[in-house]
């Protein structure tokens, strides 16, 4: 018996890193955008926040799908 599912492990590591760091970065970009005072910045910030919300919805889907 294999003690560790290496395939699942590397997937978890990569997805966690991309997802966790990605959400933190996107939220930061959203804050930069909405606080920039420029229309383009606000739109870009809004888009970044929309992606974060999509990530949260994906998280809820994962919970329900297990």
């Amino acid at each position, binding site marked *: *018996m*294999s*003690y*560790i*599912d290496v395939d*699942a*492990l590397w*997937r*978890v*590591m990569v*997805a*966690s*890193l991309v*997802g*966790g*760091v990605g*959400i*933190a*970065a996107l*939220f*930061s*970009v*959203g*804050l*930069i955008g*909405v*606080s920039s005072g420029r229309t383009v910045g606000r739109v870009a910030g809004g888009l970044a926040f929309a992606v*974060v919300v999509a990530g*949260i919805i994906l*998280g*809820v889907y*994962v*919970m*329900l*799908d*297990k």
Partner: protein
Amino acid sequence: MTGDLVLLIVVVITALSFDFTNGFHDTANAMATSIATGALKPKIAVGLSAVLNFVGAFLSLKVAATIANGIVDSGAITLTVVFAGLVGGLAWNLVTWYFGIPSSSSHALIGGVVGATLLASGIKAVKGEGLVSHVIIPAVLAPIAAVVVATVGTYLVYVLTRKVEERTRTKGFKIGQIGSASLVSLAHGTNDAQKTMGIITLALIADGTITQNAGTPFWVVVCSATAIAAGTYVGGWRVIRTLGKGLTEIEPPQGFAAEASSATVILTSTHFGFPLSTTQVCTGSVIGAGLGKRLAQVRWGVAARMGVAWLITLPAAALVGAVAFGAAQLIGGALGVIVVFAAAVIFAALLFLASRKTAVNARNVNDEWVGRGTPTQVRTPV
């Protein structure tokens, strides 16, 4: 009332008690950082977490009527073994709560069942490979994964928002923190309440009250959801304080990065079938949040204390599980189980009374960290 019915009732009550302790022990996982940064007032935070745990318990009802699956031989699982295992997990949850140490309720329960099984059926009934692959390896990997994600996330958050006005940044990340902490609470409800549902369903099947394919009765779902939500609302303030104030001083950007890291690691591990302990992931995330901010201090002594507790979770809970099983068997029948249950209640009451001497509550949970879990100025709870 027959002896079997008494045994069943005691097992159900013990399972719900374990669920309750699971709730108050794990409130910190989701809410410690939000409380520490002031994103949420302490009572609001535990209330929100309780509601989300309650809702989460109803969201996913694919309940597995198993306990320590893949770790002990299912043929060795009797009602008394389940009971003794729960007592082991319960005792470890209470002791670690008293000392303010976040530790995995799942691993404590597994430890309790392993100890009871060892005494009931011998070493052959315990699957060593399962123990290594399901508990020991994930226990090492969970905090490492979370530390890496939270460290990088925190570093990026500070670098990217360095030019954003401080007030906007603080307010923004506090809002973000509430969202990410809520996701962790919801995930906790979907995962942990189901464990209790599974145990009670297993007990009902073993007793013959329901058939193998009957599914989980609705009252079991409601009771399990209520127990974990009530426990969450009571708030394990001692653990919240250690996680929110003890490991590192947390600012809103760090709190957000930590919770985002926790939510992502927990959900991806669930998705890819490599379940990791919520507690160990959240603790790793808080450490990562400390490491990711330049010049932030991580109190490694506190972290080491947690590491030691995680190392001894399995053997300590196993020891209590074995003793509980041995005592119940020695006395025999339903009376044996009742006596052990009464001893467990007395132990919990004594620990609760001892904790009142150095009470940590919603009013002093954020007091300055003075090198130990309890604040110097103990304020009387309202």
